[in-house]
């Protein structure tokens, strides 16, 4: 494990620096283009949908068989047979379509989905992602659709706290947790910065308000290239 030197008792403060959860989702949403087909992971990624700038029409895919997922239903619209991949009730927009799991993952595996936004436990300098298991011996392993999404979707965005609750770096030379996919991540939206993963290295392209490059670098176990 990559442990940062001075992480004692800094945790909560650190995770409150920069963008909060809503703002990370909002920042990511700016990069969702008009007309894209998008799959949003459970947690903060789900929030991206509400922040996509007006005037852009985006179609949401949920891997349990719906293209054109709409908002959370009102109580009177609830249907136990209409849920998302997180098993929460959703709605379907006009122009939606239902299909079975084979077809749904054909969309994913066949490179038809433009963008998938996921959370992360660790991301490596090469864009490897670990987000399904800590590898702990007593844990019940559960992967869901994460490996299919990272292998098949054209662009993978990650929204994550820059460090773990205990202050460990999540952006590492190599992931120490079991991988979800190798070389799959394009961009990270953390609470501190926006970082692009490129062949040249990790490019810091944007800083959250009140955060410095040096500070982000000190929270990152890989050398960052400052493009600002």
């Amino acid at each position, binding site marked *: 494990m990559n442990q940062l030197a001075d992480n004692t008792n800094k945790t909560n403060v650190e995770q409150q620096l920069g963008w909060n959860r809503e703002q990370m989702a909002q920042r990511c949403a700016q990069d969702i283009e008009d007309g894209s087909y998008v799959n949003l992971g459970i947690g903060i990624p789900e929030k991206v949908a509400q922040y996509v700038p007006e005037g852009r029409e985006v179609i949401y895919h949920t*891997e349990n068989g719906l293209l054109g997922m709409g908002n959370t239903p009102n109580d009177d619209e609830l249907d136990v047979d209409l849920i998302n991949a997180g098993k929460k009730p959703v709605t379907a927009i006009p122009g939606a379509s239902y*299909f079975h799991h084979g077809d749904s993952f054909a969309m994913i595996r066949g490179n038809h989905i433009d963008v998938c936004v996921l959370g992360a436990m660790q991301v490596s300098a090469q864009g490897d992602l670990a987000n399904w298991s800590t590898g702990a011996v007593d844990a019940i392993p559960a*992967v869901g659709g994460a490996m299919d999404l990272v292998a098949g979707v054209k662009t993978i965005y990650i929204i994550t706290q820059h460090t773990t609750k205990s202050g460990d770096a999540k952006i590492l030379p190599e992931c120490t947790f079991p991988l979800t996919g*190798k070389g799959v991540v394009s961009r990270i939206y953390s609470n501190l910065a926006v970082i692009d993963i490129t062949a040249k290295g990790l490019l810091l392209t944007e800083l959250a308000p009140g955060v410095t490059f040096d500070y982000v670098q000190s929270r990152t176990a890989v050398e960052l290239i400052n493009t600002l």
Partner: protein
Amino acid sequence: MIDKNISSCAEAVADIKDGDTVMIGGFGEAGSPIELIHALIDQGAKNLTVINNNTGSGRVGLAALIENEQVAKMICSYPRTANSLVFPELYRNNKIELELVPQGTLAERIRAGGAGVPAFYTKTSVGTPLAKGKEIRNFEGEDYVMERGLKADFALIKAKRADRYGNLIFNKTARNFAPIMAMAATNTLVQVNQTVSLGEIDPEHVVTPGIFVNRIIEVTNPQQESQLVKSGVVYPPMRTKVGE
């Protein structure tokens, strides 16, 4: 004369044998054929390999089948859910085997099994622990892992409507794994909310053609897993703990 309707869930599951492989439709509770699963609990076949995306929740449906120690092995993508109590305990005590499969690979393996494809290649899981021990092969500079088709002796699924030929339509995202499981099983047992006459389902709208269906049981008002879990229902009702 073709009439796939039969009169009870008990009759539907009667010939499931110890050691059989059983696919069970549903993604969480959406599409879960809870009445058929409960009939399988009553029937008692043991040592089953069960294929489902999850492992059930609470102590009804699939979770109850597992709690009743009828399942030797689960093949699934996500054995944890908020109300998953039964599987974790048995798993930690080495009383149940788990084959963890990425959700899309699981779906494609089932589809392949039903389509007569014994094996295929996918990029999913390459470079991860789930590819361990599997053949890796390079096509056009990219690595892929070989995955095997999955078949089953039985599929237990739920649909919205059926005619006597077994043509099926589904309700919204309750469709999920049911159409591909119907293809992959030797015997596909379907509980439907409504049976209709031939011709009432438009041939353009059929999702699962009758050729993939063997038995239909009308269950007009199926129970809802989440309601049962919320009410603390246990199946079978008299049981309070595994083995008692």
